[in-house]
């Protein structure tokens, strides 16, 4: 009777093995425990022994194949059993159970004749000796009578035998081993978050609320039901971003209406939550409950996911930026004349871009599903902004191609939009690296959380005069504390330090930016 042999779990959470060499050929007879193959796992090469006495019927893989644990690698013909057409899967275990049953029956009787008869009950002539009621039960339970060993006199099959066989068959089916390393659905999670975010109108990056821009049309085509939905939700159909062009006008689907309404709703809820959170004047209450919803919750989810997925390491350093301060002072009036406000941020963006060009691993993303690190050749720098609605991260796309004034202007525009919640989803997507300027509020160092799925984030402390040791003396200098958090799966501490050094170079020697 054919018996399958699955690649066993050799422990240590190994998921697969490579068949280095077969130690038997098809047709060979084997003894129990005789090694049949050499298998290499992540850690070592092991010999895999045969569980049966019998002959090798079929080898299912070639040398060099990588086989998941639990796959059938060999089919044996087990000694002493006919090749019966018994049931769907010739799984060895029920037969051995039956043998054990028969053996124990033999023991009880202490009569070898009975033992022989036990096998006779099922196989010798192809006849089964079972009363009609047992036969019917076998049909109902899907048991193949030929594989049942009878416990009745002379091996007659009883109802009890049939029931026992039905249960055995179920137990002996081994499930696929669960030791296969489950690729934790990080990717899936990311996708989920992204799509969930897009469904609810939230940006993927930064988890911020994004009320879509009102379309402001004069006429909109919509199915009657859609009109009703719009009315119920208090949405002006003409404002809903159009799904498509139909016939001669903009058409809005019910889904589009709902999406638009939700984004409005979420924004309002966020407002309400923020207001309520600030309200501690409830008298007589020891606790106050603020709904954890909308934007806050979305941000929370994002942060948790990022922190729990990527092993964060934060590298701290301080840039001495007198030179930069001077440059800015020099250029400030020029900027004003040209009509824009010049802060440090555009310089920092440029410095960071320069650093990323030299240290591409900080401008990357980990594709766990495909087991690849994606190094990006474009530089979309996200600028984290604190708004009334929460944290938002508008993105300056292709910062490497923009001049400092362009960056400055764009940044100002984005931040304004973020603050009055007219920023679009696109404007907050696609970031490759993020800057978070908590220093604008205050503080020196922090341990920022990476803006998932990016792999690094640079936190900026307050740019201030601080004591610096130089040439043996302590002097007051303009300093900019840097807190660089990196995903240690992708970036090692050494690389992070190098990047930080590079960025610092540019910040401390701003004229270098002219070369970029």
């Amino acid at each position: 009777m054919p018996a399958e042999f699955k690649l066993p779990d050799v422990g240590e959470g190994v998921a697969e093995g490579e068949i280095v060499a077969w130690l038997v050929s098809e047709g060979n007879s084997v003894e129990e425990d005789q090694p049949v193959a050499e298998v290499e796992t992540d850690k070592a090469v092991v010999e895999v022994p045969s569980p049966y006495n019998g002959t090798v019927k079929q080898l299912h893989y070639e040398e060099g194949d990588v086989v998941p644990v639990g796959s059938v690698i060999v089919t044996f013909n087990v000694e002493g059993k006919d090749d019966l057409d018994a049931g769907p899967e010739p799984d060895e275990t029920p037969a051995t159970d039956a043998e054990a049953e028969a053996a124990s029956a033999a023991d009880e009787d202490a009569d070898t004749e009975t033992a022989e008869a036990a096998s006779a009950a099922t196989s010798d002539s192809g006849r089964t000796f079972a009363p009609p009621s047992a036969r019917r039960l076998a049909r109902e339970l899907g048991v193949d009578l030929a594989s049942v060993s009878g416990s009745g006199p002379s091996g007659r099959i009883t109802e009890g035998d049939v029931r026992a066989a039905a249960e055995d068959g179920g137990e002996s089916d081994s499930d696929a081993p669960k030791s296969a390393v489950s690729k934790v659905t990080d990717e899936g999670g990311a996708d989920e978050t992204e799509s969930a975010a897009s469904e609810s109108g939230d940006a993927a990056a930064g988890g911020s609320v994004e009320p879509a821009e009102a379309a402001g049309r004069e006429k909109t085509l919509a199915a009657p039901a859609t009109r009703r939905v719009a009315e119920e939700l208090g949405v002006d159909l003409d404002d809903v971003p159009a799904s498509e062009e139909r016939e001669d006008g903009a058409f809005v689907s019910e889904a589009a209406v709902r999406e638009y309404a939700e984004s409005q709703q979420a924004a309002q809820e966020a407002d309400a939550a923020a207001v309520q959170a600030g309200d501690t004047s409830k008298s007589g209450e020891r606790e106050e409950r603020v709904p954890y919803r909308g934007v806050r919750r979305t941000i929370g989810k994002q942060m948790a996911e990022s922190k729990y997925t990527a092993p964060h390491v934060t590298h701290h350093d301080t840039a001495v930026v007198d030179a930069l301060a001077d440059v800015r002072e020099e250029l400030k009036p020029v900027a004003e004349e040209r009509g824009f406000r010049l802060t440090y941020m555009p310089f920092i963006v440029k410095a960071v871009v320069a650093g990323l060009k030299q240290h591409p691993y900080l401008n990357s993303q980990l594709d766990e599903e495909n087991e690849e690190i994606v190094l990006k050749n474009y530089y979309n720098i996200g600028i984290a902004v604190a708004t009334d609605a929460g944290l938002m991260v508008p993105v300056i796309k292709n910062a490497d191609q923009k001049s400092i004034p362009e960056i400055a202007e764009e940044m100002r525009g984005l931040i304004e939009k973020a603050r009055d919640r007219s920023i679009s989803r696109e404007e907050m997507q696609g970031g490759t690296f993020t800057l978070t300027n908590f220093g604008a509020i205050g503080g020196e160092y922090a341990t920022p959380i990476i803006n998932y799925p990016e792999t690094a984030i640079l936190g900026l402390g307050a740019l201030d005069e601080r004591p610096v040791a130089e040439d043996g003396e302590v002097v007051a200098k303009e300093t900019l504390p840097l807190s660089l958090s990196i995903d240690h799966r992708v970036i090692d501490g050494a690389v992070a330090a190098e990047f930080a050094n590079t960025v610092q170079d540019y910040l401390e020697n701003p004229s270098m930016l002219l070369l970029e």
Partner: protein
Amino acid sequence: MVVGDVSTGTELAIIGAGPGGYVAAIRAGQLGLDVTLIEKDAWGGTCLNYGCIPSKALITATDVGYEADTAEEMGIHADVKVDVDQMTTWKDGVVDQLTSGVEKLCKANGVNLVEGVAEFESENKLRVAHGGDGQGSETIEFEDAIIATGSRPIEVPGFEYDGEHVLSSRDVLDLDHVPESMVVVGGGYIGMEISTVLAKMGCNVTVVEMLDDILAGYEEDVTSVVRQNAEELGIDFRFGEAASGWEKRDGDIVVTTENEAGEEFQYATEKAFVAVGRQPVLDTLNLDAIGLEPNEDGHLETDNQAQTDVEGVYAIGDVATGPMLAHKASKEGQVAAEAIAGEPAALDYQAVPAAVFTDPEIGTVGMTEAEAEEAGFTPAVGNFPMRASGRSLTTGNDDGFVRIVADEDSGFILGAQIVGPEASELVAELGLAIEMGATLEDVAATIHTHPTLSEAVMEAAEHALGHAIHTLNR
């Protein structure tokens, strides 16, 4: 029906109301299916109307007459007169009682009865032509169908049944007088049973058989008991001869036969009864419409749920393969009905019993000794002669025996052959033993009533085990 064709819908259409069809119909009705049973002739089919039942009625009637006539030894003196007309009337009464019983049972189980000849129009439509009265025809749309159209007697070329000189089994059960003489063509069970009936009525019977023994398929020691008794009844046997023709002569007929060597023989007789076998009735069904073909023997192949190659179409009884016996048809009918109703039924019987109602009777079930050996068993055989049975002797019979065949190693009973009084009944116990997977010990250890013929069964089992009481163990 004036214009147009309003089809009748049904879940299960059964064609043929014999022991296969009507049993299937009743079972299906019990299981809640909407069943339509279609019959072209008489409810109960051949078995009830022209076969099993009437023949057994006549066998009993003629037995009574014969026994009474030959019981002088027991002190019974009788002057027996046979009124065949009345016998036939009584027989018809029995048949009618059973036929109407079938109708009532069917109706009681919610079966719709339709009279007419059915043929397939498509895979889910039957066309039924009603007989007589200009009733026209109707369409029946079905989900599943069971073909149970049974069999008809094979006609020997040159011996077309005319009901007057050349009789079929149907005709011979409707005689209005005792024929002077009868040539019976065919020494099978039908030929032998009828020969016995005729002989006991006083008819001069000659059995013409192509093979060299009667009852092909039964073992020699079984058939020899029956043949010897038949000869004692006055039946002449002509073996190795095939009937080749007949002609009228002087108010009677002459039947000509030929043997292998080419020699011809002639038999003057009042009538000839031809019983050379039966063939399945499938030609009226238009099986082409559903793409179903019989195998080369003319039967329909079926699986273990009696389903044919065409899904939803089942075949039971004589039209299907297997022994052409009414009880096999009934079992197939039950299984088919249950399968159609969604139950996990299957034809997994271990043995089909058979009986020949000659004098003495034959009852067999399961394997013969030779068959057991061929199947790989080492047979243990037990014999018990009827002459050692007290009860048998008290019935005035000392012929025959009970033989049980079992597997020597395990003791499982594999088959039995019984010749003697009530053999047809006695064999049931052994049929149960085989189905149950009972051993010789089980049968031997069961107390059987004394004095009955069934003790012979018990003793045959004991004999196989080497410790029979009323016969020598060798």
